């Protein structure tokens, strides 16, 4: 009995010591975790669900979060504000020549890259050439030559008029992210180091790839007073619950989240910023019927659109953070046609009749590829499959978990259609991303001469002009009536932020939250 008592005493002592140690550690941890809540924020942390494709701005892909990794350290030629209006950045002015076949850029004087080298017309030419060759974006595809026409003047010659250059050269288009000559000398270094002229510079010693990307204020930046944080970290947090916990405990000040997390974050006192930012639905790539001849028939495509109960699917999947749509332009933006909204109002009977008229009275089958990632596309696909089943269309789903596998599947030539989400931008960019040849999503390479003609017509005038808007509406009407795809919901981008930062705003006109514009709240 005596020895048992001694055992218990020993355990009690060990237990007490462990408790004291744990409390001490907890207090130490407490001082670090709560510190960010009190003083003016000098160090900002943004959570992102995945790391970059590459730190080379030409290879990093588009959309958030990818764009953030190069937006911080590479300044664009043109800056676009949250309402979509263009402002000078590395370029002070720009204009098309009267024949619309040249685009002249005047550069800012006195700008230096983060390595101290001066920005010149030659360095801009070389950087644009590099982006033209290596970037997978289409913005420079109509460029024939890029020439330094003065010490601080660059002229881009076009093979055909293209009003999208000012969009390609802004922070979303990324073709105007100018790379220093030292980086262009050895492009392999672009994947690990900063060679930009942006607000921040990558701190390679503190960065751990795919975990935390640490940027510090660039001492060579041309407008130091506009740099709002001494340190800016992008922390990769794949798990939604961990993201929310990091926000709530003050470790992270901002994060892009999904609709499931939005309500919990708002209830916890975080600020929710939203803007109608992208549409989600199914893209029909097999318009020429190479894989399944049914897709070449407009009545089949229209039937597939009519069979979807958009209000029901949208409410079930996205709650109040999305609205049903059958269009590609955001409500209230150029190209949007209000009367088209009811064109594919849910009508299974009419859908069946259209299938019968097209020669598919007994229904049809096809495989659908599900894009991994944003906006609950897996659930969206399952909902659509149920609606299609009701009209006799049997769809088998393939849902790769990684985007790399998705790209591989897309190129396999087995799939006539895929789910997708597409960020809103100017109307021409959205159309040229889908319905022209070539187009980002046109992975089977179909050639719709009318769509191509509309694109040519829309390219012949400046974006936002009355003439351009009129063509945009006609183009939109054509692709919706032809049911070239099956959009279902117009969804919001959702950002949760702590009260310690402000100016995290964006809009349908420019749905990319720009971290270089965020500021400490006090």
């Amino acid at each position, binding site marked *: 009995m005596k020895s048992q008592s001694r055992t218990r005493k020993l355990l009690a002592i060990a237990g007490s010591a462990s408790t004291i140690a744990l409390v001490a550690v907890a207090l130490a941890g407490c001082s670090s*975790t709560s510190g960010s809540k009190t003083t003016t924020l000098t160090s900002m942390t943004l959570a992102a669900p995945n790391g970059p494709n590459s730190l080379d701005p030409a290879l990093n892909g588009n959309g958030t979060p990818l764009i953030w990794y190069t937006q911080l350290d590479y300044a664009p030629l043109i800056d676009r504000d949250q309402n979509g209006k263009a402002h000078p950045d590395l370029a002070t002015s720009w204009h098309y020549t009267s024949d619309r076949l040249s685009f002249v850029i005047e550069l800012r004087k006195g700008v230096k890259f983060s390595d101290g080298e001066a920005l010149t017309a030659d360095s801009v030419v070389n950087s644009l050439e590099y982006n033209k060759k290596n970037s997978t974006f*289409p913005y420079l595809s109509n460029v024939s030559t890029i020439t330094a026409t003065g010490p601080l003047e660059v002229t881009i010659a076009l093979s055909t008029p293209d009003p999208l250059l000012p969009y390609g050269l802004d922070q979303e288009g990324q073709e105007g992210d100018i790379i220093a000559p030292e980086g262009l000398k050895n492009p392999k270094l672009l994947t690990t180091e900063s060679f930009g002229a942006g607000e921040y510079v990558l701190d390679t010693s503190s960065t751990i790839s795919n975990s935390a990307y640490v940027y510090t204020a660039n001492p060579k930046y041309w407008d130091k007073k506009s740099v709002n944080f001494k340190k800016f970290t992008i922390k990769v947090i794949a798990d939604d619950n961990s993201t929310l916990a990091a926000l709530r405990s003050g470790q992270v000040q901002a994060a892009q989240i999904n609709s499931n997390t939005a309500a919990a974050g708002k209830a916890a006192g975080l600020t929710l910023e939203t803007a109608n930012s992208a549409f989600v639905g199914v893209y029909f790539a097999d318009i020429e019927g190479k894989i399944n001849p049914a897709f070449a028939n407009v009545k089949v495509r229209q039937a597939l659109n009519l069979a979807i109960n958009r209000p029901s699917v949208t409410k079930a999947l996205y709650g109040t953070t999305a609205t049903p749509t059958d269009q590609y332009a955001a409500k209230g933006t150029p190209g949007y046609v209000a009367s088209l909204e009811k064109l594919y109002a849910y009508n299974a009977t009419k859908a069946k009749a259209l299938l019968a008229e097209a020669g598919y009275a007994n229904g049809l089958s096809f495989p659908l590829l599900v894009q991994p990632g944003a906006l609950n596309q897996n659930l969206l696909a399952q909902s659509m499959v149920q609606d299609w089943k009701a009209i006799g269309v049997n769809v088998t789903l393939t849902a790769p978990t*990684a985007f790399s596998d998705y790209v591989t599947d897309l190129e396999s030539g087995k799939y006539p259609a895929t789910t997708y989400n597409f960020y809103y931008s100017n109307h021409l960019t959205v159309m040229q991303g889908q319905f022209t040849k070539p187009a980002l999503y046109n992975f089977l390479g179909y050639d719709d001469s009318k769509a191509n003609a509309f694109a040519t017509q829309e390219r012949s005038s400046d974006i936002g002009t009355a003439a351009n808007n009129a063509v945009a509406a006609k183009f939109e009407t054509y692709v919706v009536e032809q049911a070239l795809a099956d959009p279902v919901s117009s969804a919001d981008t959702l950002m949760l932020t702590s009260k310690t930062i402000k100016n995290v705003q964006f809009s349908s006109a420019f749905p990319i939250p720009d971290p270089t514009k965020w500021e400490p709240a006090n």
Partner: protein
Amino acid sequence: MLRRVGLRVLGSLALLIVVPAITFLIQSLTPSNVAASILGLGATNTQIAALNHQLGLDQPAIVRYFEWLVGSLHGDLGNSYVTNQAVTTILAPRIGVSLSLVIGALLVFTIVGLLLGVLSTNQNRAVGRIIDIVSSAGIAIPNFWLGVILIGIFSVQLNVLPATGYVPAATSASLWIASLVLPVVALAFGGITAVAKQTRDQMLIALDSPYIRSLRVNGVPDLSLTYRHALRNAAGPTVTVLGLIFVGALSGSVVVENIFVLPGLGSQAVQSATQHDLPVIQGIALYFTIIVVVVNVLIDIVIPILNPKVRAA
């Protein structure tokens, strides 16, 4: 004993060849187009072909494997397809994180598990049953769920420990420990209960054996009976189980690192696997194999020290 350990080390060297080879084979058989996935949807065939050539992916798999093997013998594990960084550079800051996590968990489930196991044999049956029930629950509770619960209580509600992230020991020892407390508990919990149950069962067998009864009759104190004689005898099977639990903890660390956003080998493994970044996956497989081999060799050394019967054999 030296011969036994020597043979074990030699056998383990074969593992260092076989495991990365199997990893390479599996990844090579998985349909993927690394260049296309890196370049994204808008890439042209020319761009994809150029990147495949640049990455050496236009070479036959067998050539690529032997290049990797020869390089690894010289300490060069190649470069990441995605970031172009040297694999050793990518993994260098992560190995310390993973080792801190799994060694921390090893210490916790060993010490706490042994104490609970011994304590339960010294107490009445009710306490033993409670520990049995808790042990079963501990094995059944998934560490990712426990991790979320711990974050909810200690980080979000009480705000006493960080929800995510890792602070290196060189930066601050106290913050390093603070960043590891919750992940270590989440990872070790199942191990604690398994060790406690194993220890209790072995202790009950040992305490019921004739030699313990003889010692008790001869007046040897209970404390000495428990710790000097019974525990030492029970420790052999428990240490063997510790090795298995450690390997389980190593795979569990992949999930725990993701929940707590620790920049360790596990979280990198998940990211690299989704990107088909074969050189990094190979490097991680090699590092994990080395860790398992070292732990197994250590166990082979410890068991004969604890149990003279094994030493004699």
